[in-house]
């Protein structure tokens, strides 16, 4: 039984344009699953649907999201917030906008412990200090009292990681956590997330468009195109040779670090046309089932 189980999830805009097309996806307890795809494929949308922070214009129009065997869509908004707050956390994409600039760092880490888990403020602060040390921040007591603008981007991302692990969630959704950082910091942060994930045994849904990152961190992988799952496989099988033509083209398009001067291979037009046709056929099928 997997911890997060998404079945046939449809998300559409108010005008009916589909963002996610019957997406099914599982994350087992302790598993690291990568979610890859191009910009606009709906990778982040899946995470947002689970967390209940979809943009105003987007709505869940079908399917189910089960967390630990409980269907989130049937819960009241408040109960849902409680469940998510206690068991799932988010590592956001941009550390520069993910901390409130007018509040000190400390309370932003301890909020959840106090609000959701009912800890005493002093206990929560001790725990936050411990976590900041765990993410290799020196002088954590000073950082707790700092405002976000006094810290660098890498520091802020470490704080967000510490904050995500604070309540010992069962699942963390990492939404391109390294995209906004420069390459040297990216590597450290990636290593840190891996390290924290292994130590705490947390399941991780890792959203990214970087297959190089995927090979380092994930055990399984879901490829998304235009809001539809194209391929779902384990990591060894994928890098040995993906079964879907689009996945193969995507893998071939990854820049090779061994050959920095080599030209990049874009995904060929023929592959795009084929996958677009597949999506169109799928949509037509959907229309059929709705009419029937």
């Amino acid at each position: 039984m997997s911890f997060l189980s998404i079945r046939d999830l449809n998300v559409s805009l108010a005008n009916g344009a589909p963002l996610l097309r019957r997406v099914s996806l599982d994350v087992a307890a302790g598993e690291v699953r990568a979610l890859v795809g191009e910009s606009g494929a709906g990778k982040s949308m899946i995470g947002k649907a689970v967390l209940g922070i979809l943009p105003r214009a987007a709505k869940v129009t079908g399917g189910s999201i089960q967390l630990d065997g409980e269907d989130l869509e049937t819960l009241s908004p408040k109960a849902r917030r409680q469940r998510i707050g206690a068991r799932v956390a988010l590592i956001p994409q941009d550390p520069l906008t993910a901390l409130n600039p007018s509040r000190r760092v400390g309370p932003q880490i301890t909020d959840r412990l106090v609000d959701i888990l009912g800890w005493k403020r002093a206990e929560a602060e001790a725990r936050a200090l411990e976590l900041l040390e765990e993410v290799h921040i020196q002088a954590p007591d000073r950082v707790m009292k700092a405002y976000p603008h006094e810290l660098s981007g890498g520091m802020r991302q470490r704080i967000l990681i510490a904050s995500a692990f604070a309540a010992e969630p069962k699942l963390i959704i990492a939404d391109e956590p390294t995209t906004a950082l420069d390459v040297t910091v990216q590597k450290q942060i990636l290593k840190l997330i891996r390290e924290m994930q292994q130590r705490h045994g947390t399941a991780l849904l890792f959203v990214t468009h970087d297959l190089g990152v995927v090979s380092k961190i994930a055990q399984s992988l879901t490829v998304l195109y235009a809001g539809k799952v194209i391929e779902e496989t384990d990591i060894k099988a994928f890098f040995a040779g993906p079964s879907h033509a689009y996945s193969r083209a995507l893998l071939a398009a990854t820049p090779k670090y061994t050959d920095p001067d080599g030209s990049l291979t874009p995904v060929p037009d023929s592959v795009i046309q084929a996958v677009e046709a597949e999506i169109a056929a799928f949509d037509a099928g959907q229309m059929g089932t709705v009419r029937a």
Partner: protein
Amino acid sequence: MLDARGQIRRLPGVRLWLSGGWLALLVLAAIFAPLISPHDPLAQDLFAGRLPPVWEQGSDPAFLLGTDSLGRDVLSRMLYGARLALIVALVAGTLTCLIGATLGLIAGFFRGWADLIISRLIDIWMAFPPVLFAILLIAVIGTGLTSVIVAIVVIDWTRFARVVRAEAMSQGAMDYVASAQVAGRGRLGTAMTEILPNVLPTIVALLTLEMGIAIIVEAILSFVNLSISTDQPTWGGMIAEGRASIYQAWWVLVFPLFTLFLTVLSFSQFGEGLKEHFDPVLR
């Protein structure tokens, strides 16, 4: 491993000192007006009418800034006028701010039908010429201090609502708002801890600006004789009276006008200075 950004301490600038100094002086003048006024602001002395300020020829040293055509002391009237101006600035400014900012926050953060109603209301409101609106309103509800304050609140809440709504909307799109919701915080809690503190510097700047505007509106209403009863000295009233004798006694008009100008300028500069000083993010 905190970097040097934490070490930056900003000193309050010249602008904050100058504007704050003038406003402090004004507050003192208003509080102690009965003690420091050389004359009763209402006492008329027709034999001492239109005396020029002390440095001009034919002046009386008892009347530092001269007298108006009814022989009332200009300085004393200005000091008492400061009382009214500051009361209007504080009360009307604060009320306008509370009402406008609350509506703006609701519209900008909660959106939906509340935003729809508030936004349309703002659009309709702003189609009225504000001063005519105020004059019409006073003509209906009658003159007096309360009426003046009500008129200012009614015509000016849109200024806050519009700006705060836009700010709240842009704050609402920030990741930390999403994070707070993932961490289980309700909508109202999010608005209070994540949105409001970040909008506050803007609200403070607007508030002081509004205080200046309130003084101007009061002066305009006094000028057209629709403010407080005529036996209470106000800057606007003095300007109106001075206008009639501008060629014979310029000082009756110029001194209150200049004070009004300085005060309104100080309010806006004070607000900008405060915003700059307290905004946590260096811009």
